[in-house]
């Protein structure tokens, strides 16, 4: 049996870099958001980075390599049934894990999306705050806090599932996410996701960050000249 074991490339390099960058920036964003103070400025920068990462992943899910593509791991009822019966033999995200991927991406999108319009009732305003009125901003701030809790829950589930696979099913999911390769007795290495696809994904991600940063918003009117400021 062992003689037929091969190495299969599961996660291409962009997917791996995306994953670990996302993990690191979400942790840093959480910590800076909880601590507050002047770190809130870093919280905002990290949020913009996450916007770029999510858009990158969405594009990569269409133009990336085999196992990174959404159509490869989209959890259809048939695939789910097969998986729950123990008949699923694929690589990459299993049909149940695919739910986790989509849930994490969706909640993260809500998280950063609401944060762009949020305020902290102190001195921080999200980069797109000017586009909404204060009432809506307050509601989005509430959503930002709520989805943050949901996100922590999903991350806990994600890590719990990986631990379950490692200890109970004896399947190390972390290693392929680090090296890209998995030892298996079947399967084909990932194909596609060339330089052009990478450039497209990076370009769209950069455009999204630019849009989210509000840098394109009209400059606020300059303050009146000092001579006109009353001395009271």
């Amino acid at each position, binding site marked *: 049996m062992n003689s037929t074991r091969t190495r299969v490339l599961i996660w291409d390099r962009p997917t791996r870099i995306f994953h670990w960058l996302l993990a690191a920036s979400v942790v840093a964003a959480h910590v800076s958001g909880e601590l507050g*103070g*002047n770190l809130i400025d870093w919280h905002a920068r990290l949020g913009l980075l996450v916007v770029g990462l999510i858009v990158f992943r969405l594009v990569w899910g269409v133009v990336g390599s085999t196992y990174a593509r959404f159509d490869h791991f989209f959890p259809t009822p048939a695939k789910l049934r097969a998986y729950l019966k123990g008949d699923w033999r694929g690589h990459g995200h299993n049909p149940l894990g695919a739910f986790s991927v989509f849930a994490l991406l969706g909640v993260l999108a809500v998280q950063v999306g609401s944060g762009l319009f949020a305020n902290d*009732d102190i*001195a*921080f305003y999200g980069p797109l705050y000017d586009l909404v009125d204060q009432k809506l901003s307050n509601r989005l701030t*509430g959503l930002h*806090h709520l989805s943050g809790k949901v996100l922590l829950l999903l991350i806990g589930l994600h890590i719990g599932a990986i631990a379950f696979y490692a200890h109970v099913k004896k399947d190390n999911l972390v290693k392929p996410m680090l090296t890209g390769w998995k030892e298996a007795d079947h399967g084909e290495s990932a194909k596609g996701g060339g330089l052009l696809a990478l450039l497209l994904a990076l370009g769209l991600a950069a455009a999204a960050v630019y849009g989210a940063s509000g840098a394109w918003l009209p400059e606020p009117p300059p303050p009146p000249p000092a001579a006109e400021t009353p001395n009271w």
Partner: protein
Amino acid sequence: MKTKFLLALLAVSFVGTAAAQVKPEEAIKFRQSGYTFMAWNMGRIKMNVEGQYNKEEVIKAANAIQAIANSGMGALYLPGTDKGKGWEDTRVKPELFTNKEGVGKVAGAFVKEANEMAKVAATGDAAAAKEQFGKLGGTCKGCHDDFKIKK
């Protein structure tokens, strides 16, 4: 003994009337106005520590925050004002009225950093003002996290 008791009674009823003069709706409005006014001044400090630093502007803003911080706004949290409408629905959590120790802690921290902000502003040291602004904002957050409804 009797006089002392009467005096105490008088004092209590006097304090009672003094507090009752503010109607709940007004109390909530005063609260909200205080925080809104401080928000204007926090924004001014932020603009100055991030852009071109104008010492006089920061002093004005820091002094305004210090004055409000030391105005004894706690007196505006009358019993029964855990719900109600001032300029808008109050966003205070009921815990503010029950967790006296916790409120005292965050309020004390805020007053301390607001006083320090005014002191630092007077020196005109932009870097120190920026750092102190962060600390001050942190104490705002300390109260918001525990005693303000997020919606």
